[in-house]
């Protein structure tokens, strides 16, 4: 259940909605258990949690102006921090948390499943319903973006 809640919490950004989503997902899982055709029940459940969250997010966005993710601002290619720098920064959980929260949902989802739930690429593909190659590129891109956000936030902190 921790895995389910963790994913929902990262996707919805808040505790209340995450709880609702997880509870809803469990009830759906219960109802549709017939559709479960063996395999890893954890992956199956996470897929339901994920879909519940995304349909919830879609509903939310319907009455919220969309803020397109600006690739220019978030482009990671320009400033590459040294590994040592990043490590020192990485220890700061709050900074990493804020940076991860800022990532677009599809990258955030892939990183949460990989880094926090330690799922394999195959499992992530099954949860998110995307091809294996997409998992690979989302994680690669997501990590670059994340590193860039960490650097930007750090710079903002240092020179407000």
């Amino acid at each position, binding site marked *: 259940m921790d895995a389910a809640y963790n994913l929902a919490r990262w996707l919805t950004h808040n505790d209340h909605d995450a709880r609702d989503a997880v509870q809803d997902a469990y009830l759906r899982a219960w109802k549709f258990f017939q559709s479960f055709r063996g395999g890893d029940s954890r992956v199956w459940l996470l897929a339901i949690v994920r879909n519940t969250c995304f349909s919830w997010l879609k509903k939310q966005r319907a009455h919220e102006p969309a803020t397109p993710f600006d690739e220019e601002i978030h482009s990671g290619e320009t400033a590459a921090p040294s590994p040592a720098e990043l490590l020192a920064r990485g220890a700061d959980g709050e900074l*990493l948390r804020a940076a991860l929260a800022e990532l677009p949902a599809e990258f955030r989802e892939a990183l949460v499943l990989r880094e926090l739930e330690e799922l394999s690429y195959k499992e992530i593909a099954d949860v998110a319903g995307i091809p294996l190659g997409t998992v690979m590129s989302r994680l690669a891109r997501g*990590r670059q973006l994340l590193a860039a956000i960490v650097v930007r936030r750090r710079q903002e902190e240092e020179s407000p």
Partner: protein
Amino acid sequence: MNCETVRALLSAELDGELDLRQSLEIETHAADCPGCAQERERLRALRQAFHFAAPPLRFAAPAELREAIGLSLREAAGLATEELPKPVRKTPRRWPSWTPRFDWRWLLLPPVAVAALLAVALLVPGMSRWSPAARSGDALAREAIASHVRSLLAEHLLDVVSSDQHTVKPWFNGRLDFAPPVTDFVAAGFPLAGGRLDYLDGRPVAALVYRHDKHVINLFVQPVAAGGESGAATWPPQAVAREGFHVLLWTERDLSFCAVSDLNELDLRRFAETVRQSYR
């Protein structure tokens, strides 16, 4: 491999998702390319950052959520059980739907119902609670599957986690009005994982949890209902298959057993046989 290809694969290499050939090629390339080597270090550092982040990034499910979900699953299961046909009550319940308005044939119904009830009663030897006739084995199997699934979904599989039968058995003391036999069948390939208290057929039962490879087996044990004929063993077990699960129901001496798993039927029968042998 050129830098572009390597950069695209670095992330997957770090996750151990590349085959040996690709990993070796990246290794060789990084040895001669400071740019890619640095990028690789950077990714590794980011990876480390996730693991050593303080406070940790992973959210734990709040305790209230666990409770709420356990409760709502129980409710959902309760509703599902209500919808199940109860063979003995079936006849009287059907009356109204047969005759929307008064009909003299109504007068025939009470004797018919009485005869039906008598027939059912005669067919039930000893009215033992889990004997197939007392309550449809199918209905019980459904309830047992529901409990099995709930235990897996709500992650409430075990109240007492131990492979030691001498820890699990005493745990039930004071929690149940009978002492379930608890044996570790690790030699037969069914190691004991622990036990918990569950409800089946409206009364508390012992749920013993065994594992076989990656499968979980729930073994529900409860005494044969009062008035039941102890010693009337039912073997071979009644088998029910539903939704990819197998359920085996049998009675041995004064106890009723119900084994549920997604294991194949043959292995589950072997498990049931192992349990039976140990309790005879």
